[in-house]
């Protein structure tokens, strides 16, 4: 499996191209912006974009979807199908998909948005805006932050710490690095933010 990193200068976001070694059906994660450089990379590696995974609904991660659909007509997968202009297949927490031979496990980690998903492919986590190098995703309130932290703690930090992290913004990293040096995560875990989860609005 090959993983390519593409940075969108206009949206400051990362797009990842994942495909087999010798070309064929590939998948694209978070098409924030489709430009000639990305198209050339797809074609040079003899890939056809058969699947698109969206980590969440924000435009910086989805803006190139229309262009991509026109060129490759891929199947699109996301947590909230209703918010997009193109047909989208709904993904659910803990579901495992076989996308042209690439096994993708879906991990829902709400908080940044309600439809935020992390996609696990092999030993790699495509975290979107859930977890970045040295940061956690932004949230609109304390309950959302508590939800995000609970998700990161129970669903991501319990995985093998050697897992690689490919975030929606910033540098690539690994779970071990985030456990040791992500001050936002460390500080939040040490504080009482998780106690907010006992609030009735979270539990109902």
């Amino acid at each position, binding site marked *: 499996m090959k993983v390519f990193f593409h*940075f969108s200068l206009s949206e400051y976001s990362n797009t990842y191209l994942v495909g087999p070694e010798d070309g064929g059906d590939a998948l694209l994660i978070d098409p924030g912006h489709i430009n000639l450089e990305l198209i050339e990379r797809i074609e040079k590696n003899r890939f056809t974009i058969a699947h698109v995974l969206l980590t969440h609904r924000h435009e910086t991660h989805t803006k190139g979807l229309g262009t991509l659909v026109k060129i490759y007509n891929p199947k699109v997968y996301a947590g909230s199908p209703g918010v997009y202009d193109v047909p989208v297949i709904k993904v659910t927490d803990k579901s495992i998909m076989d996308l042209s031979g690439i096994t993708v496990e879906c991990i829902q980690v709400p908080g940044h948005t309600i439809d935020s998903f992390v996609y696990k492919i092999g030993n790699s986590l495509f975290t979107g805006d859930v977890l970045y*190098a040295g940061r956690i995703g932004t949230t609109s309130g304390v309950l959302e932050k508590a939800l995000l932290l609970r998700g990161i703690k129970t669903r991501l930090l319990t995985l093998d710490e050697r897992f690689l992290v490919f975030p929606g913004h910033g540098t690539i990293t*690994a779970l071990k690095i985030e456990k040791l040096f992500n001050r936002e995560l460390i500080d939040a875990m040490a504080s009482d933010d998780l106690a907010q989860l006992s609030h009735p609005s979270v539990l109902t």
Partner: protein
Amino acid sequence: MFKCVPCAVEGCKRYALEDMYTCLHHAENSEEVFQSIITSINDTHRHRDIVMTDARIKDFDFSGIQLSTSDFARCVFENVNFSNSKIQACFFDFCIFERCVFTGADARHSVVAGSKLIDCSFTDTLLIHTNFTGIDAQNCDFSSSDLYYSNFSSSHLVDIKFIDCNLKNADFRFSDRDNVSFKYSNYEEASFS
């Protein structure tokens, strides 16, 4: 990219070398394997998916090498010359670099997090989207380098030069800095808090 096949030796948490069952440490003829990997890296071709963790590499000239998506975690590099090399999307996390030179290198998208850097030169180096989170660096020179979107958060920096660097979107939050110079650099475009 990043095949990450576990070492076949029970209890070993390292990854196996490319096309082998064990890590370098557990290879039967580890010295020969080490030399063979070093020789292969050092030719003019582009290599990728090399896994060589926990190795000690001293007094080597890797100038001009081309490497991508390789794993050198927890290695010790002493007096190694990486000048004008292309080492893209490589993992050098939790390594020790002492007296290493990266002048003119392209190390974009690489991960150096958790490493200790002593007396190293990164002048005129492309370090776009490079992860230096949690590094402990002393007497290093990053002058004239492009550090766009690089991440130095939670790092400990002593006697470091970032003179005339591009620091746009660079992250220095939670870093401890002692005698760090950002002269002629656009540090106002970096994040410090």
